[in-house]
């Protein structure tokens, strides 16, 4: 297990960086959950909340950048500290994109007409719920530095891809059958693609975590 740094202010800086990443994680998680809610309830206030909270996440991302550069310059970190710091930059960027995607999804969802496409919407809800579970799990793994959970999350993304493929087929089928569904179908397609990408971002975070703990790259085995 890691001991404390001899220089206490170094630990304080690292702890601050960690807390900002976790805070970003919590906020990205809220945005993702809201996108799911917007999809199931199509409530305009949710979409407004998402838009309202985006700048806060971007600001945290900038703070992470600054903290990182500060620590690099002050401490010349090595080994696990270096791995934590370098991946913090990347993880913050993944989280920011997850939040961006969630906002984009909400935007599209609010413009849907009233749902003749019940089955595809079911599948999208499944995807959304699945990526949310992935995000929860990776954030918990990040908190505890649990590399086994990181590996599990990594493989959870296979399910995201599976649902996505099923959804594509279904949408294609529906849109071919009924030309009136093309508008909504396209919007659902964009939303589905976003969830698929969110799954990838979560998977990347799992890889970063794996690298922090082991110093190695995880690529499926």
């Amino acid at each position, binding site marked *: *297990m890691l001991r404390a740094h001899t220089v206490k202010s170094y630990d304080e800086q690292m702890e601050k960086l*960690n807390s900002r990443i976790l805070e970003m994680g919590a906020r990205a998680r809220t945005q993702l959950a809201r996108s799911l809610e917007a999809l199931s309830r199509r409530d305009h206030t949710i979409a407004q909340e998402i838009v309202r909270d985006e700048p806060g996440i971007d600001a945290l991302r900038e703070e992470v950048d600054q903290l990182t550069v500060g620590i690099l310059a002050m401490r010349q970190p*090595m080994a*696990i500290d270096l791995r934590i710091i370098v991946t913090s930059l990347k993880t913050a960027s993944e989280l920011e994109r997850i939040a961006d995607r969630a906002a984009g999804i909400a935007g599209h969802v609010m413009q849907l007409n009233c749902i003749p496409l019940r089955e595809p919407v079911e599948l999208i809800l499944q995807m959304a719920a699945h990526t949310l579970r992935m995000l929860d799990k990776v954030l918990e793994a990040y908190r*505890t*530095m*649990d590399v086994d*959970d990181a590996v599990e999350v990594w493989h959870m993304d296979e399910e995201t891809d599976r649902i996505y493929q099923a959804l594509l087929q279904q949408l294609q089928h529906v849109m071919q059958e009924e030309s009136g569904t093309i508008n909504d179908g396209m919007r659902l397609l964009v939303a589905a693609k976003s969830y698929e990408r969110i799954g990838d971002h979560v998977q990347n975070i799992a890889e970063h975590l794996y690298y922090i703990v082991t110093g190695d790259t995880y690529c499926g085995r």
Partner: protein
Amino acid sequence: MEQALIRESTGRQSPTLVSRRVSRDNRQTVGDPFVADPRMTCRNVNVYYGDKRAIKNVSLDVGRNEVIAMIGPSGCGKSTFIRCLNRMNDTIEGCRVTGEITLDGQNIYDSGLDVVALRAQVGMVFQKPNPFPKSIYENIAYGPRIHGLVDSKAALDELVENSLKKAGLWDEVKDRLHEPGTGLSGGQQQRLCIARAIAVSPEVILMDEPCSALDPMATAIIEDLIDELRQHYSIVIVTHSMQQASRVSQRTAFFHLGDLIEVGATSQVFTNPLHELTEDYITGRFG
């Protein structure tokens, strides 16, 4: 997340995380201490000061054209170890070395071995620059003269010039070769000592904290020089600066209480050490 790693009580421990690094109790060397075509080999080397064992069963190779850094907390035996490589420990009362050390395949502790010649082949530069209280020229010329390496004044002049050039000092001193070496700046004096070692055609140069008395600029010049010298010599450098070790060396050896704990490619040791003690030390977690 730092804290998460430390706090064993909160959250579930990852077995993978625990098993990844060799635990602090393990005193065996991890990593590969051997190289394909070694210049020097050390096998099961122990060093005693009286009853106290300061180096414990260390095996390690020094490669050709490499800089190998020795790091570790003060008192862990770095200086003691490198002094074995040119039998400088012979000069210390009560110091005893066991095990086998070879240079180009020959055991340097063989009874018939010429120690003076050995110390030319394995030169040494110390923490505090220690030029002789003589002229710059004489500092360099002394060694080649007593080793009989030159047979004319012209040849000696040339050797002095070449040595000073290799040590990156020529341009700064060529117009005052007959002024005292002690009149140079600290960084220049250290390069003079390096030139002095170079003048007797060494194969290996040992450097014990060569920059610890120098300012950052003089340090950078020496580090740049070390990188150039690697083309001709093997260099073993003791340093307490992790940054210096990572900047100048290709391999790094970490010592702790007389044990060689870890050896590996410098890039690996500083990004992904295998042993918890190495990780503690290079990340600034001192006990």
